[in-house]
């Protein structure tokens, strides 16, 4: 047997099985309405849905809606991560603030962000700002908690070392706290990114600010079920892109840190 054959076989096998899984799923989707298990009226054929997907991809208005959703996602994520990093670092570094805000954080964090939708609508109406309130509130906590953990996680020995060498405050932040907190920060960013996308679409569905979410609701009220299914797939693909993208960023930026972080489960 050739030296690298086992690994190559394994990769090919994984690829083949994965493809088989997707093909099998599409086949089942095609067969269920064809065999009348669920009426094609309720579950359109896979081929019809994919064809619609192709049409949408050639439609400029569709891409505008994708742009609107992603803009809300991006702005929300930006605001949330900047605010969470700043507040998290300050509160995490000052023991007094950490103690004083602990219960408040523990109470605010579990509040489901969607509970704020009515309030956001009242204040901002059917606008991007209303959606941003929801997106920022949801993704803020994901980041914030990770930053708090990260800043608090500085190794005791490393800190004593820094103190014994009389590193200044800014040096300590630069060489000790930042590198320790960075992995947590990246994890928080990845989690926040996927939460922000979910809330961006949800907000469009409930608040009716323009974007993919509103498109889905419109298709639904027009009984355009093929359109609904096609758009669900689009949101899934967007989510997939966000997940994979941020996982890649996380891995890239922390390639030096993987061994240290490997075991931690939050």
């Amino acid at each position, binding site marked *: 047997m050739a*030296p690298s054959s*086992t690994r190559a076989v394994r990769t090919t096998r994984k690829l083949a099985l994965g493809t088989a899984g997707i093909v099998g799923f599409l086949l089942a989707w095609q067969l269920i309405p064809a065999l009348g298990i669920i009426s094609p009226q309720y579950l359109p054929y896979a081929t019809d849905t994919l064809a619609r997907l192709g049409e949408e991809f050639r439609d400029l208005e569709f891409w505008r809606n994708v742009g609107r959703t992603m803009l809300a996602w991006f702005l929300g994520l930006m605001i949330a991560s900047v605010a969470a990093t700043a507040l998290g670092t300050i509160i995490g570094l000052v023991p007094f603030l950490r103690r004083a805000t602990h219960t408040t954080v523990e109470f605010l964090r579990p509040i489901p962000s969607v509970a704020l939708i009515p309030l956001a609508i009242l204040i901002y109406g059917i606008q991007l700002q209303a959606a941003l309130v929801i997106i920022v509130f949801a993704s803020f906590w994901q980041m914030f908690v990770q930053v708090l953990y990260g800043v608090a996680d500085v190794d005791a020995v490393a800190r004593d070392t820094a103190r014994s060498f009389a590193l200044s405050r800014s040096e300590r932040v630069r060489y000790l706290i930042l590198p320790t907190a960075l992995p947590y920060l990246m994890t928080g960013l990845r989690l926040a990114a996927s939460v922000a996308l979910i809330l961006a679409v949800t907000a469009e569905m409930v608040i009716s600010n323009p974007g993919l979410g509103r498109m889905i609701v419109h298709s639904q009220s027009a009984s355009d079920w093929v359109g609904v299914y096609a758009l669900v797939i689009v949101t899934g693909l967007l989510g997939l892109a966000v997940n994979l993208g941020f996982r890649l960023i996380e891995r890239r930026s922390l390639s030096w840190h993987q061994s240290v972080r490997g075991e931690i489960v939050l």
Partner: protein
Amino acid sequence: MRETLLQVEHLKKVYESSTGNVEAIGDISFSMSAGELVCIVGPSGCGKTTLLKCIAGLLRSTGGTVELDGKRVTGPPPNMALVFQEYGRSLYPWLTVRGNVELPLKHKKLSRVERDQLIDDALEAVGLEQAAKSYPWQLSGGMQQRVAIARAVAYQPEVLIMDEPFAAVDAQTRADLEDLVRRLHLERGMSILFVTHDIDESVYLGERVIVLSKSPTWVQEDLTIDLAPERDQITTRALPRFTELRTHVYEQVQRAKRGQAVRPAA
């Protein structure tokens, strides 16, 4: 002559990897009688762990046979117990000390009373009666390794296999544990196959010492240790004969490291 318990013949193991095939074990043959304590030493990286895993049926060999009690080993045999070097990973942290010792007995058809008796007896044998209700991670490294030994003792195996069990404990604990192994062997007549990289340890513990060559491994020497069965950390180690044997094994291992020993034609 005592009856043969373990028979290893022309064992060979080749690892396949992307960088090329690695012949870890060339050709190993030896046998072990019932009630014997045999030590295996060799230079680091000579495939000691590989050999053990093949004997224990955890790894499939590329060629040759392993027979236990006249039966060929293809999977883990029921009448064999293992003590690993990584005690922290071989004990289950979610079970108490008692739970860990009890686990392998669960499917043996024993009454509650018999089982409890076996556990109590095993814990007493390693001196851990008081720690039965503790969790492994609450104990020191040496005590954790005692738990692993107790688990093996309670299992009542025909042969006990130990893979560098004391490599990760401090020197004083190590001496205590060595005496524990000697005692188990003498008082309970246990057959023990003990792998170590420590030359002193092999001579002190073993009735026989098998010296392995460097990889691809073969048996370089099979040496009988003609020291009295009653051994003592101070007096035995001070004996001129001990020093002689030790020096002999040391030279053999040095030769093995340099690859000076010539493999006899098969």
